[in-house]
């Protein structure tokens, strides 16, 4: 392995990292989370996400110009929207998490996170996918509809409480061992 593996258990971070400091300089508050395998991880409030992303992407010193992935995670008590950012120019990496507490989500509705799709094209399909599988609604998305499952799918499969539909296509067949 060429890169140092994070063998030690993640300890509490000391202070703000590079990007966290940068965002603080521009007036956006962040919380530093334990590094995930040596990559700076920050938590940010949903309301500031778009501004922060614009800053990180546009500034010459940070220049995180690759939005690698957006993942939705159904954690124990939050819904996380995780953004993996890379910099092509100066090899930086950053993970941004936007957390929506499950208690804040209105019953029968989806957690809300602002969409990046309007100014970052890469986010478009990732957000649609996360909406489809984890059920995070990205408001401001130009075309937020299911991308992988059929249009009238019930539920969001990667939620922990997802109950699978059983019908003629996947019930227990007589010939099968399942």
């Amino acid at each position: 392995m060429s890169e140092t593996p994070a063998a030690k258990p993640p300890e509490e971070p000391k202070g703000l990292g590079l990007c966290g400091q940068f965002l603080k300089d521009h007036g956006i508050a962040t919380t530093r989370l334990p590094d995930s395998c040596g990559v700076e991880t920050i938590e940010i409030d949903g309301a500031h996400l778009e501004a922060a992303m614009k800053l990180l992407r546009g500034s010459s010193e940070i220049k995180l110009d690759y939005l690698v992935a957006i993942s939705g995670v159904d954690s124990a008590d939050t819904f996380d929207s995780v953004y993996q950012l890379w910099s092509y120019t100066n090899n930086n990496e950053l993970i941004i998490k936007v957390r929506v507490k499950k208690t804040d989500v209105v019953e029968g509705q989806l957690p809300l996170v602002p969409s990046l799709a309007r100014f970052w094209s890469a986010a478009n399909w990732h957000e649609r996918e996360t909406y489809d599988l984890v059920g995070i609604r990205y408001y401001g998305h130009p075309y937020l509809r299911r991308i992988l499952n059929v249009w009238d799918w019930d539920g969001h499969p990667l939620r922990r409480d997802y109950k699978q539909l059983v019908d003629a296509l996947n019930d227990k067949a007589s010939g099968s061992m399942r």
Partner: protein
Amino acid sequence: MLALSLVTRAKDSLYQICRGLKTVAMHTFREPITQVYPDKMPDTNIRGRLALAVNPETSEHLCISCRQCERVCPDKCIEITAHKSPETNKLELIEFKIDHGLCMFCGLCAEVCPTSCIINTNDFEMSEYSREALVYDLRKLTLSQEESRYYFDRKEIPLPKPKPAKAAPAAAGAAKPAAAGKPEEAKSESEAKVADAKAADAKDAKEVKQADEPEKQTAAPEEKEETENKEGSDKSKD
């Protein structure tokens, strides 16, 4: 000028097309690489149809109904029915079913099998006219002695250990010669259970790692064996 450039371009294009045509045409004189399949069987080591091997030397069945394969199978395509024999107090295999229609031939079961019983043969001609025919039972799965020898040789699986000398008095059911190897195997089976349950602790002594290293196994506590056997017989009722 324009005409000249056009002519040059046309000439170049024609030349390039002819070069391509020549390359294709020259393939006429190469030998066909086709393998004439039904006439000539391919000679490779693949992860093909699953089968249960017998001991190539003594032709006893190698399965000890430890259910390692059943548990590790990602598709859950293996179904083992076993019961505890009243005489010997050991597990006896009643039925072994593999649904080849469900199997994905990943070879994990062969990897975890402590006695190299379940193996991937090189057979791939499994297509059937009906879905039910793909569920292979014990009789269909078990290889003959010659086949087992062939595959042990071919896949370079180490031969199962000869039965220990003192096993004969220990085994109460000595009247049944096929089950003569059971005590030893039962032990390794219980080890496998323990190893599986406590794999996170990674206690090397109790680990059954690879199918090709059964000789590394050491003895396991007897009470564990009892509990595991109970569990096994419970399962067999399902």
